[in-house]
């Protein structure tokens, strides 16, 4: 793993690109430029990216943009996307309202 302090030594300084303002995560409205800048700020894993920018944390839970974000981060780090640690997967698998979550009956829940 790249040390945060050395990151720009490794990958160079941030260079603006023509399509930096294209949306990548549409649920949380995160652009390509924001993701690239975040890499230069030291976010080198998808997990950090999610916490920092919230990309992949919205309604579709990264089902749409996950691959795109991975591609952009990997390209910025100049590595193969397969080398990036995939994001952690947590319940609930789908967005759910708190009022529904709150009614979780636990193990004693009723059967269908």
């Amino acid at each position, binding site marked *: 793993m790249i040390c945060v302090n050395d990151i720009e030594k490794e990958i160079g300084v941030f260079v603006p690109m023509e399509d930096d303002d294209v949306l990548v995560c549409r649920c949380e409205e995160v652009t390509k430029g924001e993701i690239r800048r975040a890499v230069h700020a030291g976010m080198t894993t998808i997990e950090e990216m999610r916490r920092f920018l919230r990309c992949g944390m919205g309604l579709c839970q990264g089902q749409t943009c996950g691959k795109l974000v991975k591609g952009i981060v990997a390209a910025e780090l100049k590595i193969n996307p397969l080398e990036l640690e995939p994001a952690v997967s947590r*319940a609930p698998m789908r967005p759910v309202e708190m009022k529904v979550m709150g009614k979780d009956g636990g193990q004693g829940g009723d059967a269908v």
Partner: protein
Amino acid sequence: MERYDVIVVGAGPAGLSAAIETAKCGMRTVVFDENAKPGGQLFKQIHKFFGSKENKARIRGYRIGEELLAEAERSGVKVVLNATVMGLYAQKEITVRIGDAIKHYKADNVLIATGAAESVVRFPGWTMPGVIGAGAAQTMMNLHHIRPGKRILMLGSGNVGLVVSYQLLQAGCEVVALVDAAPRIGGYGVHAAKVSRCGVPFYLSHTIVQAEGTDHVTGVVIGEVGPDWKVIKGTEQHFDVDTICLAVGLSPMSQLLKQAGCAMKDTKGGYVPECDAYGRTSMDGIYVAGDVSGIEEASSAMLGGSIAGITIACDSGYLADGSEQIAKYEKALGNLRKGMFAPENRGKKITQTEEGIAISETLLECGYVADSEIERYPGVTHMEGVHPVIECTQNIPCNPCQDVCPKKCITIGNNITALPVVDSKSQCIGCGMCVAACSGQAIFLIQEDIGDGMGTVTIPYEFLPLPEKGQIGIALGRDGQPVCKAEVLDIKSSNAFDHTNLLTMKVPRDMVMRARFFKS
């Protein structure tokens, strides 16, 4: 908390097939699916499937879905719809959202068959209304009978892009271009050919530069990509469209498995669980089947599901010996994974058929077999009287044409991927069963001489309204370009043809090997 012997997540082809097997062995089986309708993607598939009798070849996907559901019901499988599985925890406990409640269930075995979701690509404007997935277009057309748009550009030349383009044409949309960044068409040549002869141009080595419009798509710009996959300046061209359809691959929906703690691996085909050939993951009692374990198609998902179901029954002691059944399904699965499009051939450039015949370059690069190339394939013959001409030029595992011919004119043999051969000694009676049975719509009946310098061509025709007998129109070539005037002599429809109509048109003798579509 309710307990089951088997909980299946996902009521698509894989999940239902597995559930049928476990229920048949006497296991209490429940299937949860987050959708309002079961069947996964099967009910959107209005085309005929490839393969052999054993894997339901030449049956349309939605019919297979109906059969599968009926069998699940007969076997005692309980299917719970609008039920979203939220998490998979220790001791195979799952939480399911049903309506406004979260319920807990436990099972000795959990099979994850959640399938896959569509991938996207980004370009300026890709988030505008009017940019949709090919699967979404299929849902709109084939489930809800809504036309997704009037003028459409399709990105992606895999089987999904090709099949959905054809369905868009059937729904009355205009497909202005089929675009792919790859230099060669990814899907079956026969699927490309049937889109091509309707007049849809293919743009290989091209990609979308941007979608135009302010609050919805009004146009699109594409450009040619160079070896570095970047658009070459000056190659841009514009199309007026209201819809851009993306068919750029699928990603397995494997999050539940990862969350549960199964060993995973990241592959080019997506993030998938480590599993053996029977669907066992690294965790005891957790199984997988279908696209979630690696993208294939519905026929292999059903077989994989059946294998996983029998494995679950064996592992749990409900079935003493499933080896015979598993061997049967494995053989069928092995057959499906043969040929030029077999998993091990992905990304490889194949230049020759198994028979040693050169593959049509025009087919790979433009979507149709050129007139100068077609004569070299064994299904293309010339003889007196009516006879089939089979324009099947790639080795794919499919053989219904051989099964349906009552006169045994067509031979594929034991090797299911072999190109069909038309026997010059057999007597074709012109029944047209082969034309209707070919899932790739690659068989035509030709009569080279009916007198007066004319001949006839019978084509599979799946568009409405049907032309009238006697109607004069234009015959289009394999490339979708007009070749001559054509008169409709006959339209045959029959239950045995299953919605494929046989249109016979009269064309000049020298056009019988060129005319492949009728435009009124």
